[in-house]
């Protein structure tokens, strides 16, 4: 059974307007027929009567239509209205689907034509105004639009509950009149200060609160939603739309928690033609665990993830859900800065930084929690957001904001770990916009290669709102290429690129999107076609008397017209050394080791090592070498070694065609 908790003391009962003297008192109770529901069972077969709370009531002269007194119902739907007058009148008591309990502006439920709903007592003809009148219990029944069932007073009750919650979280009274409309046609929606409930949504409390949430968003904060259709299990929606819709659904759960309703936090839309049981459910989703869409829910642009995150912020171990614990770190065991509870903190952010944000998304809710006012509890809040794949945190590759701090990235078909475009020097670290992630990859001249990003895990549905861009820099620091949306979805992709330099290239990932300012991604770089030229080591060298083995390597571009350097390192210092060159691999075993190259050409040149034991031989690449393969090995005099020779391993150089 739905419980309507008593949340506000009623100050208006008995304040009869215009009653110069109270000659009699009208008492009684107004109630409305409600259709209870549960997440698992949909609409219950049994209906219940609930009090019409804080609604405007008038005692009326039925013959003249004059209002003799005006007041409001109490939280329990009761009235006690002092009325002045003498003689006898035909008395009627009417309760309106209108609340004046929240300052000078009113909440109303009307038809789309603007007609206010009301419910009336019978006419008490010829009532002696010196006699108190008890009208008994007046119950507003369901109203039908075609076969669709509606309850204007149920809608009013949700508006009252929603306004009570907002005020408890720190809102002032509504600054304008607010209005709900029923029947609203084939779909429920909100616009400005009004919302319109679909013909079959009159008793869908979660839908009513969702739409009323939109109205309060408009009134107390500011929405940048572009509008349009939307649904659950969609993490690739416009993040501005998803924030607006997610917040509205969250609001419904928060209101119901504030009312003390059991199992308060789920969205549910039911068929409204009188169906009952689980077959009455049209669409539902839990805020605690995303059921039944848990697998597909996550990311900054998923409205379900938005309401799950916001709900996790405000639910506590004391939430009336049959569980004495909370499944997240923000569990009500602490307060935020200034002693605010989670609802109050959320509202302060919602009506502060969020209201001021352009193109607002859930990122603005995150940023606003810590900046410009730091509400605290960063670690706990971060864990809540991260739990729904909202990555407002630095990845393990940080800091890599510069070329010099680039993170090494191995070439291959495997994707790197999930990274985030998020970096902040603030404490706590928010906001994290403007991150530049740098990665280093090694490429050979004429390698045909590809660099691309993807959504985390490669899921077709994004589970991130990220819009990464890739910029590629050569080893000499010049920009080579740039791409924003060449990959799947919003991802970047540079494919079939041909390296024009050998060395370490830099991949920079960032974003320039107006409101997808952070987010998560994966990156990979791979060589599609290896360069037709380059160097490859082979064979084993000979250990010298110092215990080291000389090594051979090359730098430069082995293309016609270029000059490469064939380098020796680790040789005996200041010693004579020989560079062998052959057209074939050799295996000439000598007492001191193996000569790894063979003819027809066998000797390239000789030189000396420097004091560090290094040497370098420059080889101009000409037409005779172009397209050829040659094999090289260094031999170095080694006084302490038997045979006086130390040798490097072999090096195969494929000269470019």
């Amino acid at each position, binding site marked *: 059974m739905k419980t309507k908790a008593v949340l506000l003391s009623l100050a208006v009962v008995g304040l009869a307007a215009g009653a110069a003297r109270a000659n009699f008192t009208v008492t009684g109770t107004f109630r409305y027929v409600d259709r209870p529901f549960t997440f698992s069972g949909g609409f219950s077969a049994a209906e219940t009567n609930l009090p019409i709370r804080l609604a405007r009531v008038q005692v009326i002269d039925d013959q003249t239509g004059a209002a003799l007194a005006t007041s409001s119902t109490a939280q329990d739907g009761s009235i006690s209205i002092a009325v002045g007058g003498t003689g006898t009148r035909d008395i009627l008591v009417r309760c309106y689907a209108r609340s004046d309990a929240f300052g000078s502006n009113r909440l109303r439920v009307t038809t789309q034509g603007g*007609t206010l*709903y009301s419910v009336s007592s019978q006419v008490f003809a010829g009532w002696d105004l010196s006699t108190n009148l008890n009208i008994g*219990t007046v119950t507003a029944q369901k*109203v039908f639009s075609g076969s669709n069932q509606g309850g204007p007073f149920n809608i009013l009750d949700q508006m009252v509950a929603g306004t009570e919650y907002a005020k408890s979280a720190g809102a002032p009274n509504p600054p304008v009149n607010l209005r709900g409309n029923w029947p609203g046609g084939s779909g429920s929606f909100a616009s400005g200060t009004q919302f319109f409930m679909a013909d079959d949504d009159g008793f869908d409390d979660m*839908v009513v609160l969702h739409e009323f949430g939109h109205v309060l968003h408009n009134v107390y904060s*500011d929405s940048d939603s572009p509008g349009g259709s939307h649904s659950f299990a969609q993490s690739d929606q416009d993040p501005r739309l998803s924030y607006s819709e997610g917040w509205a659904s969250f609001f419904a759960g928060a209101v119901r928690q504030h009312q003390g309703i059991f199992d308060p936090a789920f969205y549910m839309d039911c068929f409204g033609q009188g169906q009952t049981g689980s077959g009455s459910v049209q669409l539902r989703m839990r805020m605690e665990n995303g059921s039944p869409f848990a697998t597909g829910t996550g990311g900054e642009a998923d409205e379900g993830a938005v309401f799950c995150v916001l709900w996790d912020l405000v639910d506590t171990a004391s939430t009336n859900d049959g569980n004495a614990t909370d499944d997240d770190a923000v569990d009500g065991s602490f307060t935020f800065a200034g002693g605010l509870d989670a609802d109050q903190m959320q509202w302060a952010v919602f009506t502060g930084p969020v209201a001021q944000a*352009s193109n607002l998304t859930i990122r603005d809710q995150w940023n606003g929690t810590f900046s410009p006012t730091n509400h605290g509890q960063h670690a706990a809040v971060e864990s809540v957001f991260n739990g729904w794949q909202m990555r407002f945190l630095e990845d393990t590759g940080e800091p890599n904001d510069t070329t010099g701090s680039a993170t090494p990235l191995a070439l291959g078909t495997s994707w790197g770990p999930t990274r985030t475009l998020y970096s902040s020097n603030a404490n706590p670290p928010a906001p994290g916009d403007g991150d530049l992630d740098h990665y280093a990859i090694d490429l050979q001249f004429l390698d045909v290669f590809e660099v691309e990003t993807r959504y985390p895990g490669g899921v077709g549905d994004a589970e991130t709102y990220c819009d990464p861009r890739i910029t590629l820099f050569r080893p000499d620091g010049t920009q080579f290429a740039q791409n924003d949306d060449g990959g799947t979805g919003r991802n970047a992709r540079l494919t079939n690129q041909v390296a024009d330099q050998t060395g370490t290239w830099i991949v920079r990932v960032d974003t320039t999107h107006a409101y997808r300012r952070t987010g998560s991604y994966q990156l990979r770089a791979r060589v599609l076609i290896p360069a037709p030229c380059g160097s490859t080591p082979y064979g084993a060298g000979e250990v010298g008397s110092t215990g080291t083995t000389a090594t051979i390597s090359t730098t430069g571009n082995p293309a016609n017209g270029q000059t490469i350097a064939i380098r020796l390192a680790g040789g005996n210092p200041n010693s004579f050394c020989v560079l062998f060159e052959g057209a074939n691999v050799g295996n000439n075993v000598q007492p001191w080791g193996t000569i790894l190259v063979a003819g027809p050409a066998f000797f390239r040149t000789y030189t000396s090592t420097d004091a560090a034991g290094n040497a370098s031989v420059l080889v101009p690449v000409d037409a005779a070498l172009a397209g050829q393969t040659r094999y090289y090995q260094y031999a170095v005099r080694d006084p302490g070694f038997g045979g006086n020779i130390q040798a490097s391993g072999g090096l195969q150089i494929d000269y470019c065609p």
Partner: protein
Amino acid sequence: MKPPLSLAAFAVLCLVLPGGASPDRGALVSGPASCKPDAPIDIEVLDSSVSDGVAFVRYRVASRIDGLRLDTALELPDGGRVLNDRGIRARGVARHDPRVGSARLRLPAGATGGRVTIRAALTFVASGGELDGLEETVVATRTLSWGALDPTPVLPIVESDGVVSLDVPALRTGGDNR
């Protein structure tokens, strides 16, 4: 000429006339039309017409998530009947894999207007919470209309427990309807 059926007002509000970023930032009240969440099903009307009391509609339905079953049904106005229904009965539905259905309907005799609703039901394997692993069915609808539509009247149920009446939309105290 065969006049096309028209989408209902809901579609106009939510699909055709969404607002942009609110131009009145900082003003007290702003915001575009915002609609309730839909089931993750897209229903697109490809073609429709009415001629000689017979309506034809061809539509495309796609699930936004992987599902077990996708079925469509039609809700007709009173007195209408289906002449030819080539609805969707799909099994093993991949997301974003649209299916096409069509129907030819005999409209109620003498009707000058009315509504036809396409109802699509998607069954999928639920995840999370107490529904984890169970089959879950969600429903989306798309309503088309033709001709002149009378506003659906609001019908009060007047029921007495001694003192009850619901005034819908009677309003005898004009000053209250501000």
